[in-house]
């Protein structure tokens, strides 16, 4: 499965939360990325390919929320994200964002969920 961010979401993604604008990171994660990854897992584990070529620039807040948030929110484990997601980028000026996505996935720490006994 292939997700072209510029075509299927926006060439100008920005912001972290829905309050930051229409094309924010949380919305991309929850409405595009997570359903695609869940579907890919159901179909046998072929990785979801995310193409970032059509986007000119990303805010760090968008990328961290969209990709780091997969692990931080406990939606997937880090290993599931690493094996189930492939970032494709052919334009050299976007290599930094590809590296940033890898870093956010590697460094995201799952948030502690509130205990029922607290």
């Amino acid at each position, binding site marked *: 499965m292939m997700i072209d961010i510029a075509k299927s979401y926006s060439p100008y993604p*920005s*912001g*972290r*939360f829905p*309050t*930051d*604008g229409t094309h924010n990171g949380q919305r991309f994660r929850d409405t595009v990325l997570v359903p695609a990854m869940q579907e890919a897992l159901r179909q046998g584990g072929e990785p979801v390919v995310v193409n970032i070529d059509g986007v*000119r*620039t990303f*805010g*760090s*807040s*968008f990328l*961290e929320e969209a990709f780091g948030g997969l692990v931080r929110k406990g939606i997937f484990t880090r290993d599931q994200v690493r094996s189930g997601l492939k970032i494709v980028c052919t334009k*050299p*000026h*976007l*290599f*930094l*964002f590809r*590296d*940033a996505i890898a*870093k956010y996935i590697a460094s995201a720490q799952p948030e502690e969920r509130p205990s029922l006994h607290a």
Partner: protein
Amino acid sequence: MPESIWGKLFWIAIGAGISWLLQQYRISRSEDAALVNEHIKDIEKLRDAAQDYWLELPDDLKGERAASARVRAAHSATTLVYPQIIEICGELCDDYKDLSLALYDVAMGGNFESPRTDIDPIRAIDTHDAAATLIHLLRKARRDVLSLSRLGKYGIDFKS
């Protein structure tokens, strides 16, 4: 005496060849050094735009969007040469990648592009620190670019 003339011509040709190679090396290194200089200027512009963003609170949403657009545009300029600078940095390339990502994180992370109710002086200081550290590394890489010891490590790049 013909042998000695041919011998001299041989050494002159060898000398001219070495001079030409060193000249080519110097030209390609000078271009790399110029690219590093331009990159440093772009990083300084990003630092200034990010500091303005984190230290000023616009009156309305339009002002907020304009400020974040200035940061995004300034950052975009720094990414254009990211792969070339990685190559130029040689042994320092991993440090360059880490520091570039650190600057990106701090300048455009947190609640960047979110509606704000207060300025963020800590993030402004961190942005300045990250930019200063990256610029310091690039100056170090620029010195290395012009050194002859690099010739032994990487040879002459005739493409540039």
